[in-house]
């Protein structure tokens, strides 16, 4: 039977390098997805991911299991991503929104205000235009399918705050996406 996350952390804290690498293999995919969503470029995301796991390695002996290992890793990653984002803010130019032409995208024939985005528009880039606190909740909910409680635990905020941030993030995202599809 495969050891659980907590057992791997304990083994790694005792100096078992293989246990830590097993932990990396188990969580790297999900964490990379989160890192990409919270970073300006994929290269930045890779740096963030490395810094996250190195930070986790440094803190192995201090992990107290009050949160799950996954939550703990995501918490480190969100902090590293925010730090990286702020560091690169000044050198970063406007994020590219690629569109092959300027003609408006076709609207849904069913009406009701539904928005169809031209495939050439980079939705991910629009997500990155959101305020950091909105971007964090929307990617954790929409990309990682995390519950409100899980998001609240990672960000260490109340569940009510998660809900209100999600609501504002969706409204903002809709506005920005519509801006690229209206005449």
């Amino acid at each position, binding site marked *: 039977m495969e050891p659980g996350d907590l057992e791997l952390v304990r083994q790694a804290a005792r100096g078992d390098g293989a246990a830590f690498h097993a932990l990396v293999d188990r969580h*790297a995919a999900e964490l990379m997805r989160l890192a*990409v969503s919270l970073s300006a470029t994929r290269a930045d995301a890779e740096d963030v991911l490395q810094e996250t796991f190195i930070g986790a390695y440094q803190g192995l002996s201090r992990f107290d299991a009050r949160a799950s290992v996954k939550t703990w890793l995501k918490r480190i990653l969100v902090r590293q991503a925010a730090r990286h984002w702020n560091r690169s803010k000044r050198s970063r130019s406007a994020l590219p929104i690629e569109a092959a032409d300027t003609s408006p995208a076709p609207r849904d024939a069913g009406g009701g205000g539904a928005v169809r985005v031209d495939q050439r528009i980079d939705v991910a880039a629009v997500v990155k235009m959101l305020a950091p606190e909105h971007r964090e909740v929307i990617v954790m909910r929409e990309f990682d399918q995390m519950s*409100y409680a899980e998001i609240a635990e990672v960000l260490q905020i109340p569940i009510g705050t998660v809900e209100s941030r999600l609501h504002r993030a969706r409204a903002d995202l809709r506005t920005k996406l519509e801006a690229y599809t209206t005449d």
Partner: protein
Amino acid sequence: MSDCPFTSLLQAYHDGQLSAGRKREAEEHVSACAACAAELERLRDLSRTLADARPEPIRPDELGRLHEAIATYAREAGDDRRILRLGFGLSAVAASILIISTAWLYDGQFGKSSGHGPASPGSSSVANTGESWEHVAVGKPDTSAGARPTGTARNDVTNWMIGGTKGPDAHGNP
């Protein structure tokens, strides 16, 4: 955005965050409220759009570099710890030598030396007379009990300062 009071629950309903009872209430309400049904459809549409923008998973080369970065860090951290332990060890040895040397010097300078043989560092024939160094330094004869008569105070001080040179004997003779 609808003015219906139920719209505040639509997001939680869409995200599957309602309890079973509240979920049933929401479903009944949406089936009867056009505004809430439209808002729910907008939420679903946005989620579908975002699903298309989900980042691609970690690539094999990225995972390889990640493992390599961790292994390099662990190796260097291990080397640093070994160097640190060596440094602490050497510092402890140096400190011990310093303490022992200081104690030996102190003992030789002001302690109970027998005075036989060549003068050892820090000792002087003045000290061997039993006269205190304070009296020697100011050139005053030590009249305290146990003090022995010495030679010229200035010579005594000089001899004492340069340490080890032959000075007056116990009776004050050069």
